[in-house]
């Protein structure tokens, strides 16, 4: 299905024994992995496995307890400001303002990433054209169907051409067809050299990723391409792989 990243050389996310403790509880335990430029990296795990904690550390929202990581070449301890300038983020809750119009949302998020008026104008036109939302441009985002909102939300997250975009369960609640359309946007972005770091629960979605990591109880249990993972666990589908791995989990999701 998905082909590997064209350039395996440049590492944009590098973690080494990255750990986060909350008291006695180790949410993320010594995770080590590399993500390459333009790669679509799937970050899988059951609820409570430590995905969100790991992602928050990578985004510079939470300081690690130990270990090291660089995002786009910047250190997660000292250079969080530079990290924030180079990443985009789309949360699992819908991340646009429903009481603002499509254009106002684009203008606002472009504005806080410091885009100039000229850039904003170009980007806005280009984006609306690309998403085919010309007649909806002046409508409140709240009135759009969920699938459109999510596509818009993703486009806004990469408006400032970040090196990496973090997607936290981006396609919750939409049907497979809409999900497929959403992934077309992700492939586009990946082809432009933007690295995609995505968490998901949907195994059909997992198949779209270049590489997958499977997290269980705060530890990365497996990391490979979907094809290799299936081979490794002699499974027919990602569902089986996931089940095989998550069966041993001690933590229960909340």
């Amino acid at each position, binding site marked *: 299905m998905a082909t590997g990243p064209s350039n395996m050389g440049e590492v944009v996310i590098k973690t080494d024994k990255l750990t986060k403790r909350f008291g006695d509880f180790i949410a993320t335990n010594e995770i080590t992995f590399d993500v390459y430029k333009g790669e679509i990296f799937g970050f899988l795990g059951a609820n409570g496995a430590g995905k969100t904690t790991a992602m928050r550390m990578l985004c510079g929202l939470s300081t690690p307890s130990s270990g090291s990581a660089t995002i786009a070449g910047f250190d997660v301890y000292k250079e969080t400001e530079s990290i924030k300038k180079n*990443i985009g983020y789309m*949360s699992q809750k819908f991340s646009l303002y429903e009481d603002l119009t499509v254009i106002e949302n684009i203008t606002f998020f472009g504005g806080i990433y410091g885009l100039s008026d000229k850039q904003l104008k170009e980007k806005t036109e280009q984006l609306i054209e690309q998403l085919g939302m010309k007649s909806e441009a002046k409508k409140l985002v709240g009135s759009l169907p969920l699938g459109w909102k999510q596509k818009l939300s993703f486009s806004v997250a990469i408006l400032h051409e970040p090196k990496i975009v973090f997607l936290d369960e981006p396609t919750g609640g939409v049907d497979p067809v809409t999900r497929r359309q959403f992934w077309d946007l992700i492939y586009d972005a990946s082809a432009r050299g933007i690295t995609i770091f995505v968490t998901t629960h949907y195994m059909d979605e997992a198949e779209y990723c270049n590489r997958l990591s499977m997290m269980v109880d705060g530890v990365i249990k497996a990391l490979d391409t979907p094809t290799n993972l299936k081979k490794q666990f002699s499974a027919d589908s990602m569902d089986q792989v996931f089940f095989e791995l998550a069966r041993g989990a001690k933590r229960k999701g909340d």
Partner: protein
Amino acid sequence: MKQFISFVRKEFYHVFRDSKTLLMLFGLPIVLITLFGFALTNEIKNSKIVVCDYAKDDASQRIIDKIQTTENFQIEKALMSHRQIEEAFKSGIIKLAVIFPANFNNDLLHTNQAQVQVIADASDPNTASTLTSYINNIVQDYQNEISPSGPAPYQITTETRMIYNPALKGATNFVPGVMALILMLVCVLMTSVSIVREKEKGTMEVLLVSPFSPFLVIVTKAIPYFLLSLINLTVILLMSVFFLEMPFNGSVLLLYLESSILIITCLALGLLISNSTDSQQSAMLISLMGMLIPVMMFTGFLFPLENMPMVLQWIANIIPSKWYYIIVKSIMIKGLGIASIWKETLILTGMAIFLLIVSFKRFKIRLA
């Protein structure tokens, strides 16, 4: 700077597109001012009273004339005997009776002492005591008239069946209290709800991941509400001066400055509340409950603080609106300048700074 403007503009969109917010922001003050100013005022107009004049002399006639000319009373009839008074009260329309004993003027001139009897329908004790105090004032007024200079040689004592209510209040006392109440409620509620809404919808995370500094997120959230509160204040002031005939004797600039301090205090309080909850409902509940009752109780415009037990008086000292109420009364009614209210101003500023520091600290902790 550009980021800053984008943010403030977005915040205004939120306010103007949400009818609930708008209603809260501008409807509430208008309703409260109208309620407190007109409906709940305890100035009583056109009360029907009866007069029983056994004296029918010069002095009694002049006092009756005075009563007649005020807006407060409307003399229903002149009666002849005590029995008739009783009947008049039973009808329920008559709120008060004034009785001049025979030889009223003679007593006044020769013994320098005379009595007027006032009987009030105390089934509504507040109305009764207020009306009685009006009569007292009129009699007092007459007494001063007949002895224009020096201590009065003539003394008219009004013998009342009511206890005089010393804290006679009108719209002039309510308005500063309502101003404090509205600013506290609206500012605290607006900020806490608007921040919690971003948390609830998940947009706060997106903002925190952006290069925009978390402190600026908070500051830019506060600015629109600060400006809107000032507009709100203007509306309240215009309403009170033009509709409620509230005096404005002091400096407008000073009042706005003092109000800004209170608004900042409230915005900080709102931020503090938003840190401790994740849902709009509970933010609203905490803001309303946490503000409404203490502000109503301890500001001093509904219940005089001096009459409260010491413990409650201490509690009142930590309520910002208590100090603001004193300040507004001093500026608007007494026309005093900063020299007389620097102490209250200092206390209020101290509260603002303290709350700002605490809420920013807590906001930082939450981020870590």
